[in-house]
């Protein structure tokens, strides 16, 4: 069944070993010499802040990406010239199954096909000119679905996967891992959108996997769940494996410390804030199940950070304020005037600028010049006497931004994709500054940005606030918030559960509130 069958391995060899893996993208080193041993039937929790390299490590493990250096050994035998050489089929054949957050389920195929198709694909080594063995398909699917306690009747087996609720889809993805006789199941933040009960069920399924000698590697932020599941925690930071320890023997505070790493002595950019009267007032804002009863206010010249886990509602709140995805009820007041932005352009008209988190897909036109990207919201102002865009005015506007934001670029006509991540981000900020916003909402302003660029962006944010602009930063980069904000709001399960001054706050405090430590949510 497996492409790599253990033929009398050395009795001491662990199931899987990652040795000295290095990987860089452009100039950014995502993994710096990471080694990890995975024993059969053990549970691991891969933890670390965003950008620490854990996603890269998983991609290499699952064969989606090859490393620059380093190797992966299975049963003591190398799996190729370099780690990741196996490729997707090879990794599946070696028994490494990855359940990404999108679950990797094909929405238009049936449950049976999703569960049992890979088995046949692996058996044929990826060759497609083979007969689909329906009897085996159904038999395998039935067996695997029974293992995760899902129905096994024909009706369920033939159901389109996109008609199932999320928790069921997740179990289908795990059933697929069982069907392809996985020896290692990697789960990328599997509990993010699950209810408590669904999480408990998932944990039981994982325990059954473990009993059969399957190793499970969780990628997670949730300390409570790690504690409940048990096993070993592998903590990464800045592309390095910082430590590996037993989950049960250490306190959550220790984990937070390992993960965030830096001492809080890092320079605070926020000095001497000059706050004015209240600019933004939000009362009882709610949207479906995403967030509810959100109250807060932002003063002129104030920088407010909003943080929380992925499912806390922070992203939805940001989109509601920016008018991209309007709230369903509640009041937003800007300088005393009630506004209800129904679209991004209405929010822009009120003076709200929104810099999205994913600048590549939501914000920038990568193949277009810097100039076009920056002047996009103010094309009206750039018209000449004939009502056409004056290229001279556009060029001057763009050049002002480039100078102002210290964007490193040969020329404003250079395409944005030729810039580094930090400079791209500054182009995006520059775009929103052209409308002179009263309120600037920055969503993950330094995601994928190197340390030097971070510094520049932080200084820009401070200068804007000093000039009287109000800034809301939505981020899960805690040091970033602590260094820049006056106040930090922590969201969990759609509510703001803490509203604290950033001055006397530590990362551990926030982390515990985010993850839902019981003392904090009383």
């Amino acid at each position, binding site marked *: 069944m497996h492409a790599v069958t253990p033929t009398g391995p050395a009795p001491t060899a662990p199931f899987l070993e990652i040795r000295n893996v290095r990987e860089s993208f452009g100039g950014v080193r995502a993994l710096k010499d990471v080694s990890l041993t995975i024993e059969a039937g053990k549970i691991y929790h891969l933890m670390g802040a965003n950008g620490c390299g854990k996603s890269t490590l998983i991609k290499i493990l*699952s064969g*989606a990406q090859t490393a620059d250096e380093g190797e992966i050994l299975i049963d003591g035998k190398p799996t190729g010239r370099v780690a990741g050489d196996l*490729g*997707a*089929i090879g990794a*599946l054949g070696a028994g490494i199954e*990855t359940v*990404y957050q*999108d679950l*990797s*389920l*094909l*929405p*238009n*195929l049936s449950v049976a*096909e999703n569960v049992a*198709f*890979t088995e*046949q*694909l*692996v058996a*044929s080594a*990826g*060759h*497609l*000119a*083979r*007969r*689909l063995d*329906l009897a085996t398909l159904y038999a395998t699917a039935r067996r695997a679905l029974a293992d*995760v*306690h*899902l*129905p096994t009747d024909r*009706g*369920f087996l033939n159901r*389109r996967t996109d008609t*199932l*609720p999320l*928790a*069921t889809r997740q*179990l289908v993805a795990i059933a697929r891992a069982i069907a392809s006789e996985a020896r290692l199941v990697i789960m990328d933040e599997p509990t993010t959108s699950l209810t408590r*009960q*669904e999480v*408990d*069920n998932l944990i*039981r*399924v994982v325990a059954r996997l473990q009993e059969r000698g399957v190793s499970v590697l969780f990628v997670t932020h949730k300390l409570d769940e790690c504690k409940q599941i048990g096993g070993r925690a592998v903590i990464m930071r800045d592309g390095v494996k910082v430590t590996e320890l037993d989950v049960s023997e250490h306190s959550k505070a220790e984990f937070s410390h390992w993960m965030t790493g830096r001492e809080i002595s890092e320079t605070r950019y926020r000095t001497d804030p000059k706050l004015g009267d209240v600019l933004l007032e939000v009362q009882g804002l709610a949207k479906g199940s995403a967030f509810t009863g959100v109250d807060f206010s932002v003063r002129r010249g104030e920088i407010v950070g909003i943080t929380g886990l992925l499912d806390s509602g922070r992203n939805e709140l940001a989109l509601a304020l920016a008018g991209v995805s309007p709230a369903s009820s509640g009041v937003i007041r800007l300088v005393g005037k009630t506004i209800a932005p129904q679209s991004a352009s209405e929010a822009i008209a009120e003076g709200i600028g929104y810099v999205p988190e994913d600048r590549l897909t939501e914000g920038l036109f990568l193949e277009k010049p810097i100039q076009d990207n920056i002047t996009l919201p103010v094309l009206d102002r750039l018209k000449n006497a004939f009502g056409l865009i004056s290229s001279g005015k556009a060029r001057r506007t763009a050049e002002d931004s480039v100078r102002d934001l210290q964007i490193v670029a040969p020329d404003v006509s250079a395409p944005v994709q030729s810039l580094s991540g930090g400079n791209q981000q500054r182009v995006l900020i520059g775009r929103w500054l052209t409308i002179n916003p009263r309120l600037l909402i920055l969503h993950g302003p330094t995601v994928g940005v190197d340390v030097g660029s971070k510094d520049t962006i932080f200084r820009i944010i401070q200068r804007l606030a000093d000039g009287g602009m109000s800034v809301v930063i939505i981020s899960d980069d805690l040091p970033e918030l602590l260094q820049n904000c006056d106040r930090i709001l922590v969201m969990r399960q759609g509510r703001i559960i803490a509203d604290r001054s950033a001055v006397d706050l530590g990362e551990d405090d926030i982390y515990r509130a985010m993850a839902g430590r019981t003392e904090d949510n009383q």
Partner: protein
Amino acid sequence: MTDVISASGVNEKPRGLGRRLWDLLGARPELFTLTLVIATSIVVIIANPDFLQMSNLVDILRASVVRGLFAMGVLVVLAAGGIDVSFTAIAALVMYALTMLVIDVAPGMPIAVILVIAAAGGALLGALNGFIVHRLNAPSLIVTIGTQYVYRSFLLTFVGTALFMNIPAAMDRLGRASLYTHISASGVASSLPATVLVLAVAAIVTWFLLERTLMGRAIFAVGGNPLIAERLGINLFTVRVFVFAYAGLLAGIAGVVHVASNRLANPFDLAGMELEIIAAVVLGGARITGGSGTVVGTLLGVLLITLVSNVLIFVGIPSTLQLFIVGLFILIAGTIFTLRNRG
């Protein structure tokens, strides 16, 4: 405890008849196509009971063969999330060049060899589409518009523009071959053409390919989500080249069948049929965005389009109004399928 999930989320709740029909439509969109076919037939029969003559039914089948062959190819491309508008140009190039070749070089070539060459030539031209789509990572609509023009212009510029009135003997025999001849009471003879068999074989092969091979599941997987399909180890290049080559293969065969049925090779034929064929496949329940569609639904879609274009004339609906009706059907089907997918 785990039963909580299956009870709340997986098992169907009891529903009314309307809701069940609505769900059925989601699972089996071709039932809607069948309904339209039946409704159209009933309207035609009421308006003109003479419609139910063997000669009319045979005419519909005859007219469905080339459309059906094209549609099988389009179905496979659509299922993989692509779109192809170059197949008529491929068919025209293959049929005309091959007719010319056979007449000039090997007038006695048997029909089996002619069909094999047509299939191979069509597959080659189609594979080029797939290769370009994959290598450039370009929208297949744009690529196939481009190759359509290139193939057509190549045909008219370098191959020829003169009609072949005397087609090769083997093709002529294929066109005249009859499975069954019916002589009506009034003495009108109508014969079921053997070319229907070509469509039948193509339909069965396509069904087997889509439903019973790993390639078939891979095609739907790529149509559902190419990134996930690739992550699961499906080779996108293989799938893309295959689907376009398959559409080209069927187009090549359709070209020969077209020449055989008309006893004429006209290089200007077939152009402009692309949208009608795509419409037939979509009317048959395939989504234009990929990842779905069935052979039976596609055949029904072809039948519906043929019915409307060939038969409504018998009941006094002017040909100018036929397009209106086809358009209406597409709008109704499109609306219903879209609403069903949202619900």
